C-alpha cells in the first residue's frame, strides 16, 4: 500500500485502488457470492400450500351453504364465525403462497436428478475427450509453427491460425452446422455419388452424433490449445534437438525426451483453457445438436434459468460446473508444476 502511494502519489494511488476495488467487488467477487448464495436456498414448493388453500375454500363453500339453509340465528352465527376463521387461515396461506419462506441448505445440489447427474458426468468426460483430442491434433501444428525456419513463414502460419479465430465463434459453429446438416454439404456430396437418398430423407444424421459437437468444438477452441504450446516451444534451444539427433535418438524419442518435457507448461495451459471452454460451452452443443443430439450440462443450466425459471437449481448447477473446472485447473497446475502466472500468458 505504502509503495503504491510512493509511486503514484496520494490522489492517483487512491483513485487506482478505488477502481480496482470496484472491479473486484462489483464484477468478480460479489456476483460470484450472489450466485453461490442463490444456490444455497429454495422456496418450498407451492403445490402443497395451494392444495390446503383449495381445501379451505371448499370447506367455506359448504359452510356457506349450511349457513344459508339454517334458520336458527345462533347456529347461523356459529357457521359465520367458522367461515371467518377459515378465511383468515386461507389469507395467511395465500400470503405464504405468493411469498414462500426461504429455506437454506444443500438440497439444490443433492436434488439433481439421476438423468441430470448422468449428463453432468458425461459432459465432464466429453470435455476431457475434447481436450485430449485437441492436444493430439494441435501438437504437430504448434511444433511446426514454433520451429518454422524463417520469420516470414512463422508470420504466415500465425496469421493462418488467427484468421479463423478472429471470425465470430458462432459463425464458426454455423459453418460446421452447414456442412453436417441433413441437407448439408457432406450429405449433398454423398447424394451426388448416389450413396444417400436425400429426397426420401435417407441422409446420414451427423448432427445427432456427439462427435459432431466434438468436431465443431475442437474447431472453435483450437487456438487456445495451439498458442500456449507455441509460446513455450519457441523458447526451446534447437541445439538440444540437434544434439539428441547426433547422439542417435529417433524422432519419436526426441519428442518424448526433449520437446514434450520442454513444452509441458504450454501443454498444461492449453489443456486448462480447452477444458474450461468446452465444459462450459453453451454455444457449440446448443447450436450443433438443436435438441436432437445428447444434451450438454450447460444446456441444462440454461433451461433451469430460462425455461423452468428455477434460478436456485440453475445456480446450483452452475456452481457444480465451476467446482469441476476449478478442480481441473488445480490438478493440472499441480501435475505439470505450473503457477498461475504461467497460465495467463
Amino acid at each position, binding site marked *: 500500500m505504502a509503495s503504491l502511494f510512493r509511486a503514484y502519489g496520494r490522489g492517483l494511488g487512491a483513485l*487506482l485502488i478505488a477502481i480496482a476495488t470496484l472491479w473486484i467487488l462489483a464484477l468478480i467477487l460479489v*456476483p460470484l457470492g450472489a450466485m453461490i448464495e442463490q444456490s444455497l436456498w429454495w422456496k418450498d414448493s407451492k403445490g402443497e400450500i395451494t392444495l390446503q388453500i383449495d381445501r379451505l375454500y371448499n370447506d367455506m363453500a359448504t359452510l356457506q351453504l349450511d349457513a344459508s339453509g339454517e334458520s336458527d340465528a345462533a347456529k347461523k352465527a356459529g357457521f359465520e364465525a367458522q367461515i371467518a376463521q377459515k378465511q383468515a387461515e386461507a389469507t395467511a396461506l395465500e400470503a405464504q403462497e405468493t411469498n414462500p419462506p426461504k429455506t437454506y441448505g444443500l438440497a439444490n445440489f443433492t436434488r439433481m436428478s439421476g438423468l441430470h447427474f448422468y449428463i453432468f458426468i458425461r459432459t465432464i468426460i466429453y470435455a476431457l475427450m475434447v481436450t485430449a483430442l485437441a492436444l493430439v491434433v494441435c501438437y504437430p501444428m504448434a511444433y511446426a509453427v514454433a520451429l518454422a525456419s524463417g520469420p516470414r513463414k512463422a508470420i504466415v502460419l500465425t496469421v493462418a491460425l488467427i484468421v479463423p479465430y478472429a471470425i465470430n465463434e458462432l459463425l464458426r459453429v454455423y459453418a460446421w452446422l452447414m456442412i453436417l446438416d441433413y441437407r448439408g454439404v457432406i450429405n449433398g456430396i454423398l447424394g451426388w455419388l448416389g450413396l444417400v437418398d436425400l429426397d426420401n430423407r435417407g441422409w446420414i444424421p451427423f448432427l445427432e452424433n456427439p462427435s459432431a459437437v466434438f468436431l465443431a468444438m475442437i474447431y472453435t477452441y483450437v487456438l487456445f490449445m495451439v498458442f500456449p504450446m507455441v509460446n513455450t516451444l519457441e523458447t526451446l534451444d*534447437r541445439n538440444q534437438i540437434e544434439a539428441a539427433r547426433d547422439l542417435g535418438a529417433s524422432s519419436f524419442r526426441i519428442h518424448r525426451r526433449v520437446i514434450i518435457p520442454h513444452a509441458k507448461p504450454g501443454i498444461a495451459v492449453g489443456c486448462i483453457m480447452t477444458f474450461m471452454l468446452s465444459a462450459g460451452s*453453451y*454455444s457449440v452443443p446448443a447450436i450443433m445438436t438443436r435438441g436432437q443430439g445428447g444434451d450438454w450440462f450447460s444446456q441444462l443450466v440454461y433451461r433451469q434459468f430460462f425455461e423452468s425459471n428455477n434460478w436456485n437449481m440453475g445456480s446450483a448447477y*452452475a456452481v457444480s*460446473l465451476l467446482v469441476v473446472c476449478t478442480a481441473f485447473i488445480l490438478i493440472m497446475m499441480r501435475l505439470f508444476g505450473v503457477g*498461475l502466472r504461467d497460465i495467463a500468458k
Partner: protein
Amino acid sequence: MSTANDSAGARLILNIYIGLFCLYLFLPLAVMSAAAFNSYDYPSVTQWRGFTLQWFVALAHDGRLIQGLINSVAVALGVIAVSIPAGLAGALILTRLGQRSGTVLYSVLVSPVLTPGIILGISSLIFWREFGVPGGLFVAVMAQSSFIASYAMLLFLARLQRQDRTLEEAALDLGASHMLVFRRITLPFLAPTAFTAAVVAFLQSFENYNTTVFAIGGEWTLVTEIASRLRFGLSPVINVVGVIFVALTLVAATTYVLLSSRKKAR
C-alpha cells in the same frame, strides 16, 4: 517449413499435416462464404441455383439484425469504457505490490479468464437483479467486462514489465508532481497498449456469446440474434454476415502481414 534437423520423410509428413490442418481451418469458412452467393433459400453449395446478391439486400432490410449490430457495438464500447480503466488500475497496482500480496490480488484479478463464460453471465444476472436491474445490454456490459478487464490487465502488465522506472523516478526527483509524471511519462508509455487492449476488448465483446446469452435478458446483440435464429433453421442471410466477417478479417490480417514484413525489411 520445419527444422532442418528433421529427415526428409518426417518433413513431408509434417507438411502434409499442416496442409490438412489449414484445410480443416479454412474449408468450413470457404463453404460458408460460397453459400452466401447461392440463389437458393437454404444455405448450400451442393445445390447451386446460380449466383446472386439477393441475401445481401435481405440483410440490409433485416431490422432485427441491424439493431443487433448496433447493440453489439454499443455493448463493445461500454466494455471498453469499463475494462480499460479497470485493467490499467489493476496492472499499475500489481507492478508495485510485493510478491505475497501481489500473488493473491493477481489470482483474483485473472480468475475470470479461467471461469467458464456462462458462469460469469449467470453471476452478473443474479447480482444485478438484487439492484432491480433485469438482464439487458447493461448487465451484458458488466458480465463481459469482468473477464475482458482481466485480458486488458494482462496486456498492460506485459508492457509495464518493459518499463524503465528510472525515468519516472528522475522526474519525481526533479520536482514533478505525481499527476504530471503519470500524464507525461506513464500514460504515453502505455498508450499503444491501451489501443491494442481496446481492439482486443472490442473483438472479444463483439463475438461473445456464452456470457452474453445469460445476461442479455429480452434484448439482443448480433450474435445472440443469430443464435436464436439458428434454432429455427438455417438462412443464407446468416452466411452473408459470415462473409462480411471473413472479408473484414482477411483485410485486417493482410494489412498486418504487410506492415510487419515491411517493418522487418527496414
